């Protein structure tokens, strides 16, 4: 995982949210933003039924023990607090882990590396859209611009790097994607005409 192109190592000192996968009984990915972990859960819902778990409040949470390199080896003690039968879990979106349980992953049945790479890949692109195409996507913009109509003043979200249609196309590719290489090619094709900031330029050598 450490060599995976889309992986950025990070320690979670304060807020740490995890996406819990009930069939494998493990955390697939961690992130410190509830907003992004929620979006990631929705994008991944075409593959898995995931549940958001806040892990930093667990009585045995140590940032040195759990990160995105090893989160598949951890579960939570209070699984019974999760409503496994709800797809959306609206209104009770986040379960707070009481304790974290070390449950070494059994790789005989599931290819966890493949699943984790997919989640990291999707998070990468959600963050990309958040930074580069956020204007049409952020909650504050959706709410405020609904009555301020700033686009009438020429402050159009389409003037941002990623326009609304491109954002939708990337999200569709992630939502329906089944193969990482194919989806990667599809997205690279979609963004090929963008002049990317330096950070992204290095990762996507097209422009």
């Amino acid at each position: 995982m450490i060599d995976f192109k889309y992986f950025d190592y990070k320690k979670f000192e304060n807020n740490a949210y995890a996406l819990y996968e009930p069939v494998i009984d493990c955390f697939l990915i961690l992130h410190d933003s509830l907003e992004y972990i929620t979006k990631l859960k929705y994008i991944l819902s075409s593959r898995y039924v995931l549940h958001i778990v806040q892990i930093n409040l667990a009585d045995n949470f140590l940032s040195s023990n759990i990160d995105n390199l090893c989160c598949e080896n951890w579960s939570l003690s209070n699984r019974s607090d999760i409503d496994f039968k709800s797809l959306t879990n609206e209104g009770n979106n986040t379960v707070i882990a009481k304790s974290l349980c070390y449950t070494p992953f059994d790789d005989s049945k599931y290819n966890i590396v493949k699943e984790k790479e997919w989640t990291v890949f999707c998070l990468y692109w959600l963050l990309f859209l958040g930074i580069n195409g956020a204007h049409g996507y952020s909650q504050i913009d959706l709410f405020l611009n609904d009555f301020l109509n700033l686009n009438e003043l020429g402050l159009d979200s389409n003037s941002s790097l990623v326009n609304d249609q491109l954002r939708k196309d990337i999200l569709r590719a992630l939502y329906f994607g089944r193969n990482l290489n194919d989806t990667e090619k599809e997205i690279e094709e979609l963004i090929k005409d963008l002049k990317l900031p330096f950070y992204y330029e290095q990762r996507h050598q097209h422009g």
Partner: protein
Amino acid sequence: MDKIIYVRFTGLEHDRIKEVIAHYPDLNWELYIGLSKINPDSLGAYTRHGVNSFPLKNDIVDILNCRMPDYDPDYRATFDDVTDLRLKQLWSSKNKKWLINWSGGIDSTVVVTSILKNLKPADFKDIIVACSRFSVYENPNFFFNFIKPNFSIIDSSQLDVNQEVLNNYIVIDGEMADQLYGGGLNTKTIDDDEVDFLSKDWRRDPDKLLSIMESKFDKKFAELYYENMKTRIESCSIPIETYYDFFWWDTFDSKWAPIKFRPLLIYNSSKNIADAVVNNNPVHWYDSQEYQLWAMNNNTPGIKYNIDLGERKLASKKYIYNFTNDSYYYKFKLKMDSLSRQSAKTFFAVTNDYTKLYLDTDLDQILELLPTHINQGN
């Protein structure tokens, strides 16, 4: 109307209803009312095989023509066989267009898969799929790859299955699959980390069940439940060995009639539903003799279920996977609550002319007729 044929659990704890049932103190009310707590989604319980150990008459089982078929230990048809057969039987007797209720869940996806697998594309023009946006979110790949390209679609969230709809369509839903597979794994009674005990012999190891139920309810109810199940199981000749079998039997026996009745009662806004009952429309896909015979013979790990949470309703998931090749749906799809079921209207009873009675508007009638439904030793 001169008698009640059906009541819902909800309402039995109404003060005026309690006054009526207090006149029958020797009946098993504490157990029966407690059953609603095991599975809060359930409408009621009526046994359809063996002894009726509940305090209510089970005439509804014959009215709805849902007595259990005789157990045949030599029945060998697979889930795929009976599913394909069900499609062919229903299609050959079709006299109206079909309206399929597709929730995105496993049960109704089997129905649509069977259509796609067994019919010709030219036949699809006679089939409409009713679904909602949440159906799509539950199974997006199936929707975009198979439903959208092949069928006309209507919004199920706006659909009232009233007489006009039933006059124009055979309405088909995925009800009663839960009863084929067994409900114990899916109730609040057993947490998912406690499922290991389901493979134990229920006669030899009552303690684990009793302790789980005692922790969730109370000791007296736990013992009443176990003893009642024991009485019901021992009055029939079907092999019920493990706790998996035990819970399957509970729902297969006592929930079949309420679930068969449920769509008529909940999705139909009409106060009287006689036409729907008489014409057997809506059609519940899994309500066939062959499915029930399959269910009686396949309480086996690897066929109906396995230990992993993703391996419940396994035969259904395999049937879908063999058609779609969607390995994510196969591995990770879980049984979900149906959103539409959560909007049940609060009728309390149904009379023998198929009129729904409500506690708030029909209480006097209910109080007068309820004794006709109490099981005084039949």
